């Protein structure tokens, strides 16, 4: 029996997004406590992050969110072909973000700045906390980015096939919502880690 409830599906997605925010909320809480306990060390450690790469990644993610939103409008107007192109662009942005992150993390690991390294052990506790939270938060964010990428790939295939169309696009909307969540979390991570120096 066909049971369809788009509003219900979106309600479910919103609640799920809520839980994701709370998941990160625990980390933001720890960040806030550590920041107030070790403000100078956080200040010094933040200088080691490359704000330029961070800014590029922010722009890349914002652009990807815009194209997801546009793809929904495209599908609503019946232009599936354009929607596929827009979604593909989103996935390219996700890939670009990952490449950027690879170089950023790779550089840090190369100079020996990672949890458990000899260099980390020699740093003050506040700095260790900063870099640990940096890896933990951006790592968890990246995991969500990969999951979001997989969801959008599935959605893109369905748009291509036409199973997502102008009359039925709640899956695309939910995928888009999830992608915006990934974006939103980055929007908070970026200033907390890169800009407050």
């Amino acid at each position, binding site marked *: 029996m066909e*049971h369809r409830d788009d509003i*219900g599906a979106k309600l479910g997605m919103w609640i799920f997004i809520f839980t994701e925010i*709370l998941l990160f909320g625990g980390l933001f809480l*720890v960040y806030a406590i550590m920041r107030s306990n070790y403000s100078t060390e956080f200040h010094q450690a933040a200088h080691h992050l490359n704000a330029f790469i961070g800014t590029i990644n922010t722009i890349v993610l914002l652009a990807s969110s815009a194209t997801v939103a546009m793809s929904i409008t495209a599908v609503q107007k019946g232009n599936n072909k354009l929607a596929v192109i827009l979604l593909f662009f989103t996935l390219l942005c996700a890939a670009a973000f990952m490449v950027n992150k690879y170089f950023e993390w790779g550089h840090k690991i190369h100079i020996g700045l990672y949890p458990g390294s000899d260099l980390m052990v020699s740093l003050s506790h506040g700095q260790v906390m900063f870099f640990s939270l940096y890896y933990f938060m951006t790592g968890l964010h990246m995991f969500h980015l990969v999951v979001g990428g997989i969801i959008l790939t599935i959605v893109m295939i369905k748009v291509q096939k036409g199973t997502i169309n102008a009359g039925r696009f709640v899956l695309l909307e939910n995928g888009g919502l999830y992608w915006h969540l990934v974006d939103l979390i980055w929007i908070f991570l970026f200033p907390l880690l890169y800009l407050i120096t």
Partner: protein
Amino acid sequence: MTEQTTHHPEPSYLVDTGKYKGLMAWLTSTDHKRIGLMYMYAMMVFFAVGVLLGVVMRMELFWPGQQFYGPQMYNGIFTIHGIIMIFTVVIPGLAAVFGNFSMPIMIGAKDVAFPRLNLFSFYLYVLGAAIALSSQFMGNGPPDTGWTFYAPYSIQTHTNVVAAVFGAFVLGFSSILTGLNFIVTMHRMRAPGMTFFKMPLFPWSLYATAWIQVLATPIVGITLLMIIAERWLRIGFFDPSLGGDPVLYQHLFWIYSHPAVYIMILPAMGVITEIIPTFAQKKVFGYKAIAISSLAIALVGYFVWAHHMYTSGMSTTARWVFSLLTFLVAVPSAIKVFNWVTTMYKGSISMKPPMLFAIGFIFLFMIGGMTGLSLGALATNVHVHDTAYVVAHFHYIVFGGVGFAFFAAIYYWYPKMYGRMYNFKMANWSFVFLFSGFNLLYFPQFIIGMMGMPRRYFDYLPQFTFGHQLSFFGGILLVIGFIIMLITLFSKKGAKAPDNPWGGRTFEWRIASPPTLENFEVMPEMGPDEQPYDYK
């Protein structure tokens, strides 16, 4: 009173109609009733294992000193007893079993909002339980931290903590998805005419529960991940030898784990609220007060977590604020108790087994609740913190409360689930053994706890011997009661159950026993003057 059993042309949900037969038909079914039963079978197995571990602990404590095994094994046993009972039995508990089986029917729906997600939650539950149990057999031996995984010990012990913690994380994820599913179901799928304030009160309690599941569980999820990260990478979030803060762990842990107590008890209260008006044949007293008190418990219960930490090092201000909030959360719980009692007043009470268990619940829950207040008060807490008194208190809530409500719910909905009745006399005997065994097991723990018996200790001073021995015999009675109950329910087929054996008014009693796959032949509606508990 009891309506005639009519003939139903559609086969019941127990008959396989899909492409699979037998076990596969169950394992692939997205039907909410079958998923509810699968949860129930899984939980009964876990519960039996947990009970057995409890008995093994009581055996060791029968005399002071070492009897059968050493302290390390004792630590491992109370840890896995806690993990199994908390994470795989009482937290999913009534919501997963009866929430799945009864709630969609009670609101007049054919299924939950996301049936496939529902089945996925079940498999996550099985997976999480399997991972948690695998901790016993892999790595450096069973974890010995207690189910709370307190830092720094959980960071430093060489036992297999990571598997247990990750299992708990997966179980939490399953719980989130069930909660999400229920919220959407209750928002979107109520029968026409059934406004929120005409919804039966068991769904209401599940609604409040679901919000706690969704709001609180992610916090423990991230905290458990931090424990794993700290063990692997020696980060220093929580372990003071790495510069971390163990009190921070306790905060993060209890931000979830105290609301989790309400995840356990709220559906239990909901079940009792269904049973009492049915067996008193009287409209529930203070419908709105009960509905709103569920939400109030969920809301206030979110802000009382630090009452587990009075002795851990907090400011005096924080301590009295948390103490005050703890006293406040007792108010909506008391409202419910008063409403149950008032519902029974001048009702035509029939003491069938579900009602017997419901009244037993009220008695045990009152003791559990009142002793909770003495623990929530700062001065007495410092005296009895981490003693057997605490063990007795929370067993009165999670076993005397949730457990007895679970038994009541089985006896209440069993005719609907299987379309069969059971032997009332046997069921009453199971109550006698369970109730007396329970009190004999846990009440002495209050007394020896007050005298200074610490919890989680392998050995004890001779003056506590008598109390521990009473507890052991109580445990044996409890096991006998449990076995009688299983025999009553599952040994042989009872007489065919009518559609409405108890004279209930909610939707599930207006359909066939057992229900058809789609529950309703004609989708139910609620008239403008109709109320969920319209007894004469």
